[in-house]
């Protein structure tokens, strides 16, 4: 599978995701944001970081960069798009995913390992996970508090577009297991065509037992499946 990682000025998880993709046997290319042609790709990743310093609004300025036009075209043609953390924020700013990411409810940057539950395992991003499987995964963000309007939320529920929710070690999804105030504990969502995934947690940080665990691996192997 061919993948492209888009690098914006201020992206800082671009190397991390590239390492993970390479490990998972993706043929990966890094694409600088000023490029106007996207290499042929089956998967496009918008990595985490602080594109443009998170200035104005997280993801807002990256959402206006040249390459984004191409990403939107590819998305409409059905290419898989994965936005992690800042990448998720960029996806909402470009309109590829609906809703927005507000500041964490405690108004602080949060970096820690949290639990998420696989709500929908019948997607191209999650078919290797079991339904309701609990993953331990790292989060690192200032604005991860997902918010959307009631009609979109209804759509997310009905169409089964919520793929991950924050939970505790036992799998309880409630306020105490919600690290950032996200609506309904949402940690990751899909678009209605289910080819675009935006998620705040970092699966690329969970592909190496030496530093963490392997809970992120199946996200990538699902895509290869």
């Amino acid at each position, binding site marked *: 599978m061919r993948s492209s990682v888009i690098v914006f000025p201020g992206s800082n998880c671009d190397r991390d995701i590239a390492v993970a993709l390479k490990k998972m046997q993706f043929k990966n290319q890094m694409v600088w944001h000023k490029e106007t042609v996207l290499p042929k790709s089956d998967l496009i990743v918008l990595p985490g970081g602080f594109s*443009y*310093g998170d*200035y*104005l609004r997280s993801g807002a*300025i990256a959402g*206006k960069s040249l390459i984004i036009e191409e990403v939107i075209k590819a998305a409409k043609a059905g290419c898989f798009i994965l936005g992690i953390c800042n990448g998720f924020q960029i996806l909402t700013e470009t309109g590829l995913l609906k809703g927005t990411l507000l500041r964490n409810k405690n108004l602080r940057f949060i970096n820690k390992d949290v639990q998420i539950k696989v709500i929908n395992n019948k997607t191209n991003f999650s078919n290797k996970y079991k339904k309701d499987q609990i993953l331990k995964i790292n989060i690192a963000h200032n604005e991860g508090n997902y918010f959307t309007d009631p009609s979109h939320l209804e759509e997310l529920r009905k169409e089964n577009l919520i793929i991950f929710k924050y939970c505790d070690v036992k799998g309880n999804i409630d306020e105490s297991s919600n690290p950032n105030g996200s609506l309904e504990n949402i940690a990751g969502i899909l678009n209605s065509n289910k080819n675009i995934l935006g998620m705040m947690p970092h699966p690329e940080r969970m592909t190496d037992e030496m530093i963490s665990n392997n809970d992120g691996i199946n996200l990538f192997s699902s895509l290869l499946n």
Partner: protein
Amino acid sequence: MKFSVTVTLKKDVLDPQGKVIKNTLNDMGIKNLNNLRQGKYFEIEVNETNLTLAEKTVNEMCKKLLVNLIIEDYKINKI
């Protein structure tokens, strides 16, 4: 009585956000943009009929909390 408070970075203080926003607008084709500085805006309502006193209260709020006087300036307007 209602007031607006505009808080901006002092003239000589670096505004990293403003700089990036300006460059982006330039890149998006807006060529006659010369400079851009960003800041914060507050709308404040005070229970007070005397304009001087009301302004004094708002001014106090600015100095005590709303404004970081080390790097920011502010303007109060009655609305």
